[in-house]
């Protein structure tokens, strides 16, 4: 135990979840207690930011965006997934309301941060494409001097607008609440989900989307 700090306040306060921030050289940690999300600096053990009333009821899980420094996703018992910019915590940047019961897990894809996976106790796993708040809102950009003349013309024809956020797929193979979802660390296009009835389902990102992102 290298250092500790306690949360002050009335009543029985419990931390429900915590996450290391992958940026900032491992000095930041975010925790969730009841309906608040707090960010802590481990060097001084002080609170950096505090997102009050992140969700109407309990906050179940957090995840940091691996590619963008200040972005954080949280999910909770109000069936919503919210994306926050920790520099401005008064308003969520985006809110997803696709589930019809508590969202237990939210996970960013480790390499392509527009792919978001959420699992919920309504027995569904939803894969969403949050392009507008990802690190590559305009798709894969290539430097001009790397292109040959033919590809140059193709590049001009491409439409330079941000793609639309959308739900890519809803996976309904589970019969009971899904309590955990995770991306594979070996293959960035593979993910697994686990439900209460002991079912483990492994899925892939649809091929069309995969090629669209890669190319």
């Amino acid at each position: 135990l290298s250092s500790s700090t306690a949360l002050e306040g009335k009543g029985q306060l419990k931390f429900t979840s915590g996450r290391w921030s992958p940026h900032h050289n491992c000095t930041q940690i975010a925790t969730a207690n009841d309906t608040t999300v707090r960010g802590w600096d481990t060097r001084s053990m002080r609170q950096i930011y505090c997102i009050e009333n992140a969700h109407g009821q309990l906050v179940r899980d957090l995840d940091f965006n691996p590619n963008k420094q200040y972005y954080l996703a949280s999910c909770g018992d109000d069936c919503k997934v919210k994306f926050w910019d920790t520099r401005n915590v008064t308003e969520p940047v985006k809110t997803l309301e696709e589930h019809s019961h508590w969202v237990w897990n939210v996970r960013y894809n480790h390499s392509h941060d527009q792919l978001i996976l959420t699992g919920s106790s309504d027995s569904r796993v939803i894969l969403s494409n949050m392009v507008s708040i990802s690190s590559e809102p305009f798709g894969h950009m290539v430097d001009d001097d790397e292109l040959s003349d033919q590809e140059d013309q193709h590049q001009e024809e491409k439409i330079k607008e941000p793609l639309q956020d959308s739900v890519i797929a809803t996976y309904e193979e589970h019969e009971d609440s899904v309590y955990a979802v995770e991306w594979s660390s070996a293959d960035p296009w593979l993910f697994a989900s686990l439900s209460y009835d002991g079912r483990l389902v492994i899925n892939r990102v649809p091929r069309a989307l995969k090629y669209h992102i890669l190319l």
Partner: protein
Amino acid sequence: GSGAGGSSEAAAGGTGGGGWRRPHGPLQRYYGPSAAEAAEAAPDPTDINEPHFDPEAFMNKVRSECPLGQLLAREAALGREIRALDSDMQTLLYENYNKFISATDTIRKMKVDFRYMEAEMDDLAANMAAISASSARVSAALQDRHRRGAQLAGVQALLRKLQALVEVPGRLRRWAGTEPVRALRCYARARAVLRHYRHLPSFRAIEDESHAIMAELAQRLRTRLREETLDPKELTECVEMLLQLEEPPEELSEEFLSQAGARLEAELAALEAELPTSDASGAATTPPPTSDILDFVDRGSSAFVGTLCQLASSYRTLFGADTGRLEPFAATLATRYFELLERRLALERGLGDTSLLVRALDRFHRRLQALLELLPAGAAAAATLVARAARERVDRYLRALQTFFLGCLGDVRQALAAPRPPGKEGPGLPDLLATLATSVLGQLKAVLAYVQLFTARDVAFASLPYFKGEFCVTAVREGLVVAFVRWLCRTARGFADGPAERGAPAAPPALLLLLARLCLDYESSTISYILTLTDEQFPPQDSGPPVTPGPALGAEARAAAQRLLDHYVQVQGAAVAQMLRKSVETRDWLGTVEPRNVRAVMKRVVEDITAIDVQVGQLFEEGVRRAQSSDSSRRAFSVYSSSRAPSRYAPSYTPSAPMDTHLLSNIQKLFSERIDIFSPVEFNKVSVLTGIIKISLKTLLECVRLRTLGRFGLQQVQVDGHYLQLYLWRFASDERVVQGLLDEVAASAAHRCLDPVPMEHSVVELICERG
């Protein structure tokens, strides 16, 4: 004998017969209507009174038909008649005899008189000839003298004129001070002659002198013109006189206009003095106007517009139809007047008296008509002014409606939150809803009635094309009615969307329910009613701007109602779920004792759900519930006690080990429908209650899954579950939903239990009945 006598008598009777027997016979024949009848009737030769009487035929007929006694009677009658006729004839003759005699005498006398008169006439003719001859002689004799007399008369007239001319300067001098009009007239008359005879020195002298006097007069008039206290009439007179004095008209017209301008500016300044001015900081420095807008417009119209019209018409009469200078002059002043009026209108802050405003605008418009022939462009400006004022007023009404609605909502909230004295029922939700709806509708109708004043038929500007078309559609229908309905839906929705997120004090659930019902009612009936009413009072044009159709508004209202109801379900569900969650989290499930009774929190849950049922039942209808089977309320958990009661889904399994049970439950799940917990509810009671129950039971399920239970913990869960199932099935639309969820709870509890030994079913029932 008798035949011959009879025939002569008959002949005499025939000739005189027409007279006595039927005195009006000839008259009848003359006047004709019976002529036809007479013509139709066959001439009967045996009828004594007919012209075709034939005595032979008559005698034959009578002889053959009548008996002797009758014949004798007939003869006697005939004789009597003949005698009567004779005597009548004699009487007539004697009566009229005198008259014949006197007529003859008169004629004789007339002849004599006429002979006498003829002689007299001849005499008269002779005399007349004599007279005319002598008159000709007389006039010939006097001819010469007559000529000389006329000549002298002419000379005298000339001398008189000369004298008048000579006196002109004297007269001018006398009148120039006091009666310039007479002087002018005199001068005008003299001027032409003087000019003509200018070459004669004496005339020249006269002319110069009078000219000098008139110049002096002109000078005086000019100075008078520049005075400020002239009224338009005097001004006109002055200018008229100056024109008569042959001053250059352009100069005069400019002078006229500037004077008139000064006058009108004074009027406008007086009007402006009424308006409160504001200094640099924007605060009013003079007190607000004490007169109302009608007075203001009156004053403005009569003073300013009247004066302007007067001056304009005088200008026209004086300077002809050349309006080159007049129009811009009038235009600038009119613009300033409009500005002042706008400022005054802007001061009409309150909703005071719309009829007053309408009358004021009407008067303004009417009085302006006279001016508008001068300023064709002014018509547009005036119309815009009126239109803007009307629009302003409509907007204000909209805002007032909004405030009113918020006030009503505040009242409702207070009524809901007021502490009730014990023993007295609180205000029923249907009553509150009815009051709210009727008051809002009433207010809307009142506002429409006020606004209709703008398009009343006796108002002058109502015939402007703006008011007929665009006002009705854009301002009233869209701007007032549709905007209000939309705002109402938005505000209602705001109760659902807004506060709960921020943690601000949320609306009480009863309010959400009330608003949901209100929006639903709006969608079903009120919106169409309001729109028809508006269309009746303000008929839309066919070619006008597009209107929002009723169904579109209805859809918005329905969406708001849906959102509110969903939010209500969420809020109530969250309240119940919180209780259950706390109860699961705070209890020590491992070390608990054998359950003797149902936990208090379950009873509380059932009470709460019953209360919600009552509350929702006040406003929404029952809804459709799936038919229950006979053993529905006595069902035990299928998973565990499948040895006792037959399981509904799996037909023939008799599981003995937990492993099989697990498989069984999975297979059961394959067949049952997946339950969506937070799905949109329908607008009836069972749907709402089902939603709330689903949320609560699912929370219970998830919380139970997070704890580790001991044996008695499991039994307690079992007891609680059975109790809930006993009481909650009747609220749900489909009891299988409740059953399924409770089965899940029991199954999950069993999985989490260290020592899963369920309680006997009869004992469970006993405890539940007792509790």
